[in-house]
């Protein structure tokens, strides 16, 4: 038995942060809820592939992935943060600041985004193989309405790869990352048993209610308030459906909304970091938060007006 250490640690903050992120990423990747969600999302893709080109509907996969990867990621992000704080009486005595620990947790949010990216690659590959035409989204379906009563440009009608991939990226990548980051931020500010589930359910209900109301309430769907509500919600269902029949496509810019969703994700990370009141970079933090809020407003406007 010896009490002689193997050496004092070297100090390389970026390297420490990278390794902390790997630790948290491993915790995220092995969390049962994430694994179940990832498997369900993957099953959705496999089912779509097995169904063949005639029944290939990338839109359904976007929604399924946002549901199975995005919402569980809220809970996982929350749980990882809460359980890390179990050691909170000890953590402030370590030289690595709380900001780095939070950044590592936010870095771990890339795990569900990476899983979504893999599904995105599969989706793009299948679409390229089976639907190489310009009609990537179902705007070309006969009878579909576009643009709404305001007759604003509905970009999905003249859909190109940029808009299609933007929409898919939002569902496959941005939603899982943003959901997990929201979970981390919520846990940093609000500790409650089951808090992650409450946030996830609240987020899911918000998205579904806003989109459903805009879609199904007669006379409401194409009004400015409805379109605004849909646009500022964290996730947009770009097509309106009645059963399996596509009845319309929302106006606006998917690329703009992807940018908006990324700004929201950035705001979630910022909110998580803002909890650390001991950070020497608080003034810079406020400026970054303000810049992100302005960027979110601008990108929401872009998403709304196309």
């Amino acid at each position, binding site marked *: 038995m010896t009490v002689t250490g193997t050496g004092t640690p070297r100090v390389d903050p970026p390297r420490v942060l990278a390794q902390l992120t790997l630790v948290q990423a491993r*915790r995220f990747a092995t969390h049962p809820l994430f694994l179940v969600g990832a498997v369900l999302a993957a099953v959705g893709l496999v089912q779509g592939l097995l169904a063949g080109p005639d029944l290939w509907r990338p839109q359904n996969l976007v929604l399924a992935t946002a549901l199975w990867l995005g919402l569980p990621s809220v809970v996982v992000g929350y749980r990882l943060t809460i*359980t890390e704080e179990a050691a909170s009486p000890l953590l402030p005595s370590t030289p690595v600041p709380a900001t780095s620990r939070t950044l590592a947790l936010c870095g771990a949010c890339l795990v569900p985004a990476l899983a979504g990216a893999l599904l995105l690659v599969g989706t793009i590959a299948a679409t390229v193989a089976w639907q190489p035409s310009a009609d990537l989204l179902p705007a070309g379906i006969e009878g579909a309405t576009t643009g709404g009563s305001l007759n604003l440009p509905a970009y999905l009608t003249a859909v190109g790869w940029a808009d299609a991939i933007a929409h898919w990226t939002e569902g496959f990548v941005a939603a899982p990352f943003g959901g997990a980051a929201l979970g981390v931020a919520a846990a940093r500010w609000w500790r409650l048993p089951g808090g992650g589930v409450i946030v996830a359910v609240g987020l899911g209900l918000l998205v579904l209610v806003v989109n459903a109301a805009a879609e199904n309430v007669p006379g409401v769907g194409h009004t400015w308030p409805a379109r605004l509500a849909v646009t500022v919600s964290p996730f947009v269902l770009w097509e309106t459906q009645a059963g399996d029949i596509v009845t319309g496509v929302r106006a606006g810019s998917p690329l703009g909304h992807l940018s908006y969703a990324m700004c929201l994700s950035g705001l979630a990370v910022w909110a998580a970091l803002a909890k650390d009141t001991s950070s020497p970079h608080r003034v810079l933090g406020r400026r970054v938060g303000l810049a992100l809020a302005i960027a979110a407003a601008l990108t929401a406007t872009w998403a709304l007006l196309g």
Partner: protein
Amino acid sequence: MTPTVDLADVVHRYGSTTALDRVTLRLETGVTGLLGPNGAGKSTLMRVLATVINPDGGTVRLLGRDTADADQRTQVRRQLGYLPQELGFPRGFTAFGFVDYLALLKEFDDRPTRQAEVRRALDLVGLRDVATTRVRRLSGGMRRRLGLAQALLGDPRLLVLDEPSTGLDPEQRAVLRTLLSRAAGHATVVVSTHQTEDVAALCDRVVVLDSGQVAFDGSVADLVDHAAGRVWVAEHPDPDAAAQWRTGTGLHRNLGTPPPGAHLVEPTLEDAYLLLRNDTARATP
């Protein structure tokens, strides 16, 4: 020589409650025991020493650095080991994984070095065999030793241990004493405890806190001397005693003035501590 711990008039409050009231302490290499009743301010003092909280008043210099300054505080933390009174464990970690995570937070960024250090720390507390076991499967004593293992990472120059022997069996406590006495050869070890026998066995210095103030600061022998001539064994309890209890021999140990027919005995540190507490309470208006 610059003391490792140099506190001057340290004050800390929780709302209207004063947890530390003008505490002044200078500690150097060796083991110092911190005694005091519940609510005396021991854990608050330990948290100040661990740089977890900044006091409301006074100055704190640890390892020659002012902890009010963020950069100097970080420098202190690089040479600090801390075991809080109640340590939770993040879910999903193995014993090795937890200590490895704390090693990262102590900036061991070179993986082979870090892992060697983690293995060394687990060896020290006798947990090498359960390194791959999930923390939630460990017993309370094992978890306490795991907490101790992370505190020992990097061979810190200042070890702040809040009730380290809680939940340990006698053999483990003996191992703990061995560990701390060896560490005290080159480090300043501050141990907060309710176990006076740990202090008597281990510490060269004892500080008694009462109501946030230092009620005693000196050697263990000096504190024991405080009780010399005031500890008696008798067949009957003395109702006027500062404290009394029936011992395993059937006789009653009385602290304070001698009851009729009592025999004077050698005081222990516990006797001295109880008498000091009693004297302090009487002196307080």
